Every structure is written in C-alpha cells, then in structure tokens.
C-alpha cells in the first residue's frame, strides 16, 4: 500500500490572536482554555493521519467536530493555520496559487453536501465544468462528461436543469462532475447526508460499485457511523477538532479508544459490520487422522458437548459427529470414525457479515462452522455468541 495523502500536524484556528493560540496549542492547552485566553476557536487540533492509495477513508464526527474544516484543508479551500498536507509526497502548503490550481484541476475533485450544482447550467454543462475551465475543447469534454454521467447511472437527462431532478439524481450529477476530471482523489463532504434514507443507501452502494471499478482514493466525510462503517476501509473519528481514533471499522467496533467512541458505536447496527470471524467461538475439535472413537467420547465428555467438529491433520473441516453415534461405535468396538461423520454441516466464511447469516442461524439447530479460504475450521457460531456480539459484548477470541 502506498500512501496517497499524508496529513501532519494539521491545525486550523479561527478568529483573532491566531499566533498566540498556536503557541498555546503546542503547549498542550485544551480548546476551552485557548478560547478563554485568546478568544480564538480551534477548528482542527494537530491532526495526523495517512490515507492509502485506492482506499475509502472516512472522517467522521458530529457537527462541530472539525471534519468539514479538515476536508477543506486537504484542498486548501480553507487555509490551514499550521501543519502540512502531502499528496504523493508533495507538500500542498508550499504551493503557489497556480500549482494549487493545477492540483485541484487534475488530482482532486470535491462532491458537496448540497450538491453545489450551478442552477443556470444543464446537467451536461454542470458535468463539463471542471474540464471547461481547463480549456478542454467542447467535443472532448462532452465525451468525458457523458462517460462520467454514465458511470453514475444517469443518462438521458443531459439537457435538464438541476432543479428539475430529485436530490439523489442531483448528487449523481455532482459525482459525475467530480469524476469527469478523472481525479486521483475524491473529496466527499457529507455527500449523501442530504438524501433520504433509501436514496442514501442506493448512492452508497453505487459509490462502492464505482470504487471497485475505478480505485480512486476517496476521503469521505460523514456524521453517520453506519455509513462510515459501510464505506470505510479506514475510519477516523473526530471530536472537538481532535482526532479520537483511526482504524478499520472492525478496530473501532471491537477496540473503541475511549468512552466517547464507545458511546458512539452503541447505536450502531452491528449486524452489518460484524463478521462470522468476529462472533465465532472455539469448538471442540477431533482430528480424524489421529483420534479414535474412545478419545473422541472422552473429549466430548470433558467439554460437556454432544457434538464435536471433525477436522483432518491440516485442520480442514470434515464434518461433525454426534455423541450417540460415537457411543454406538464404541459399543460395536469399531474404530471407523469416518463412518459416522455427518458432512452436511452449515458453514460460513470468516468474512461473511453476520447480517447475512442471521436467518440461517435462527433456523438451524447445529452451530455454523466458520472456515477460511482453505476450508480450515476457524471456529463455530452459536446463537448466544451472536446475540452477545450484537449487544456489544466482547466475544472471547482464540487461536
């Protein structure tokens, strides 16, 4: 993974006495202290993070957390007070107006919360805007704009005006306008927040779809944790201008950095985020290449279970055995464990979201076997553990 965007000590202070406030920040004073002493408001306080090439990086926080200021500092719509933004290793802060304009034209485009479409231009003319100001000729820019409009699934509206379209459609035009420049980085400021829930889900899916094809580096601002968890490869949580935690969605859910994040994730629909791997527990396993019926029975007794999971030397899942069958085998004095193994075990991949398994789990009596790509048994899912995980309890991890 190469780093596409690197942000170092990025700080924004609004108001008067900016320099004094800057010194106070470096001394480690808090936001209210600085406000009291200087009257200046700290918008973003010394943020540090890296964004990988081709990932969706979600910056999330409630209003006033500094997330919108943050994204605007990345393309310098808001001039940072201190710190640096490196794009492909190049420091944006050191650029003059002209080079900055070049970066904005070629490297990154922005999508806005309220779409930011020009009401006096048609859909096509809006999508062409970025190319038009670069001096691209009419024919080429029309072609590129049309491709972009097609990518976001909006065709046949070229000559309509923005106010004739629904919110979802308008934002598709906004996205097409951003894509028409073929930028490497997309900045999306609460891009779906103004849409109704159904449209929002649609757009999220579409963004993921587009991302799969185009592999842009996307910096997505959101106040909605569900959205963040759905879209983000990495999520950065901000509060009062400070970065609270940065990590993968799973990191954030399983290891919240502090009480604030914990409170935040309390309301999350975990079923959409947690995977089979997150909720599985350790099963009682029998290695069929080594163990016979007697040893099997003994292990089942010790662990007080009536079913055991059978694997081979490579831990590949073979099936399950039932305690009654094992007892029968022992009585017959047979050692052929394979004859009683049931192979029709419900299985799930470790990365399957439990949301997708929920129905099956509730209908099947036997716990699900969780396997990896090589069909190796990694754990099992029991109903109790699923409920526990949804309620936010830690599942005992193992291996």
């Amino acid at each position: 993974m190469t780093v596409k965007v690197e942000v170092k000590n990025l700080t924004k202070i609004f108001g008067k006495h900016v320099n004094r406030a800057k010194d106070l920040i470096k001394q480690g004073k808090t936001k209210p202290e600085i406000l009291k002493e200087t009257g200046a408001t700290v918008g973003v306080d010394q943020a540090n993070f890296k964004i990988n090439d081709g990932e969706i990086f979600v910056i999330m926080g409630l209003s006033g957390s500094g997330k919108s200021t943050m994204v605007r500092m990345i393309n310098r719509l808001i001039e940072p007070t201190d710190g640096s933004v490196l794009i492909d290793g190049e420091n944006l802060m050191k650029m003059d107006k002209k080079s900055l304009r070049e970066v904005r034209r070629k490297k990154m485009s922005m999508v806005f919360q309220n779409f930011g479409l020009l009401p006096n231009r048609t859909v096509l003319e809006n999508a062409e805007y970025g190319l038009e100001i670069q001096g691209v000729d009419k024919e080429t820019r029309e072609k590129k704009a049309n491709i972009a409009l097609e990518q976001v699934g909006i065709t046949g509206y070229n000559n309509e005006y923005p106010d004739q379209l629904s919110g979802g459609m308008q934002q598709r035009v906004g996205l097409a306008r951003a894509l028409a420049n073929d930028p490497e980085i997309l900045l999306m400021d609460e891009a779906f927040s103004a849409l109704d829930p159904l449209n929002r889900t649609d757009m999220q899916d579409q963004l993921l779809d587009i991302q799969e094809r185009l592999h842009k580096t996307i910096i997505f601002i959101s106040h909605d944790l569900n959205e963040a968890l759905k879209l983000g490869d990495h999520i950065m949580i901000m509060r009062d201008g400070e970065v609270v935690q940065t990590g993968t969605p799973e990191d954030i859910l399983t290891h919240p950095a502090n009480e604030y994040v914990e409170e935040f994730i309390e309301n999350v629909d975990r079923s959409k985020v947690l995977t089979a791997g997150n909720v599985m527990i350790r099963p009682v396993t029998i290695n069929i290449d080594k163990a016979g019926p007697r040893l099997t029975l003994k292990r089942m007794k010790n662990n007080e279970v009536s079913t055991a999971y059978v694997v081979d030397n490579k831990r590949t899942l073979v099936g399950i055995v039932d305690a009654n069958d094992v007892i029968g085998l022992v009585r017959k004095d047979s050692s052929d464990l394979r004859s009683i193994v049931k192979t029709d075990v419900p299985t799930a991949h470790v990365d399957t979201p439990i949301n997708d398994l929920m129905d099956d789990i509730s209908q099947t009596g036997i716990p699900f076997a969780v396997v990896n790509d090589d069909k190796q048994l990694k754990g099992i899912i029991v109903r109790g553990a699923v409920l526990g995980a949804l309620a936010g309890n830690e599942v005992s991890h193992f291996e």
Partner: protein
Amino acid sequence: MNNIPQIPLAHWIDGFVAWLVSFTGFFNGVTNFIGGINNAFQWVFDLIPIWLFIALVLALTYYVNRDDQRWSLLGFEFFGLLLIWNLDFWRDMTQTLTLVLTSSLIALVIGIPLGILMAKSRIAEIILKPILDFMQTMPAFVYLIPAVALFGIGMVPGIVASVIFAMPPTVRMTNMGIREVPGELIEAADSFGSTEWQKLFKVELPLAKTSLMAGVNQSMMLSLSMVVTASMIGAMGLGTKVYFAVGRNDAGGGFAAGLAVVILAIILDRLTQSLTRDHKRG
C-alpha cells in the same frame, strides 16, 4: 453660536469646482465622448421611420417576453406609441429615450465593475457605501450646478447628473447579487481550480444576473425621473415640454408631456424586466 465663526463650506466647494474647471482639456474630452454616444443614439432614432420604430419595439417585446400577458403589453405599447406620435411628441420622446439610454449605459459600464469590486473587497465596500448613499440622497438639482460649470449647457451635463443620480442601484444590486451566490457554489468553483476570472464569469455573474438586472432596471427608471430636472440646463426632450408648461401655467400641455414620459417609462420597465426573467433558461 455667534462666537463660533461660520465654516466656509460653500466657499471650499466653490474652490474645489474652480480647481476642477481648470482641467478644461479633460472635461472637454469627456463632454465630446458622452456627446458622441448621445448623438449616435439620436442619429439612429432619427433615421428610423416612426412606423418602423413602433414595429421594432413590438417585435423586441414579442421576442423577449414569453409571458401569457405579453399581448396586453403589446397592445399598450402599440397604442401608447401611437398616442405619442399623434401628440407630436415623437422627437421629444426619442431625445428623452436617448438621454435615458446614454446615462443608463454609462451607469452600467461604471456601476457593474464597481459593484463587483465592492463584493470582492471589504475595503471597497466600506469606502463606497457612504458615497453611494450620498449620491442618491443629495437633491439631484444640486448636481446641475457643477455639471454646467464642467460640461457646459445641453444634453451632456444632464446625462452626467443623471448618471450620478441613477448609478447607485446598479452598484448596490451587483454587489448584493454576487454576495448572495451560495457559498457552496463558490467552493465548488474553487475546488475545481477556477481562476478568479472564471469564477466571476462562469459562476458569480450568471447567478447574480437577476439581481443585477433589477439594479439596471432601477437605474433606468431613476434616470428617467431626472429628465425634467435635466431640461433646466438645456437637455432637450419631454422634460423640456413639461418645464415650459410649468412656466406658462399650461396644465394640459404639462400633463400631455407627462403622460408621454409615463408611457416611455412603462415600456422601458417592462422590457428590462422581461429581459431579466426570460433568459434564465439558456
């Protein structure tokens, strides 16, 4: 109060005007320039036969006004212009129209850039705002005095006085229109790498157009209201007819000329208003 000597304000201003008059060359140049524009308009209007003029006004109205009510406007224009012709005010009407168009044009050419400057720079706004207030509230008569000193007698000083009196709405409305462009659209323009000029011409001015045209419309109406005042220093037209009627205590003649002004005002107002509305859709 008797102990405090009177401030010689009038004397100072006289001194200032006298100082300005010493730039004869400059003011002669301006006089010739404005006079040139004025004469060009007048030359065109004199050239067009009256019936053709009426037809052109109707055609223009038909073209720019897509309202349902355009037929009543067309009817009004037709009979209104015929009435002016019939009353033998045609030449006076075109002279007044010339004065209004010339001063509106100058007000526009100076006022729009000033409005843009005002929208872009806080300092410009702070300086210009009181000046605009001054220009608009000072009794318009007062402008005539230095205007005569600087530009002589005739159309030009009338136009200059009209410009000063009529320009503020254009400046103000341009300023307001640009400032009211939603912040997100400005951000959008910037985020795609627009230059300042591109932002101005592709985003700000098109979006400020409605407000800007409302300013132009107001300026035009204000300069029309100056025609009687301007006639006192020799600006010819319908104003002169009214002015003379006052002198002769001729109520009938005064109202007849006044009615012609009203007709002209309504036509100009409706035309500029429909210009504002119609071209919203490309």
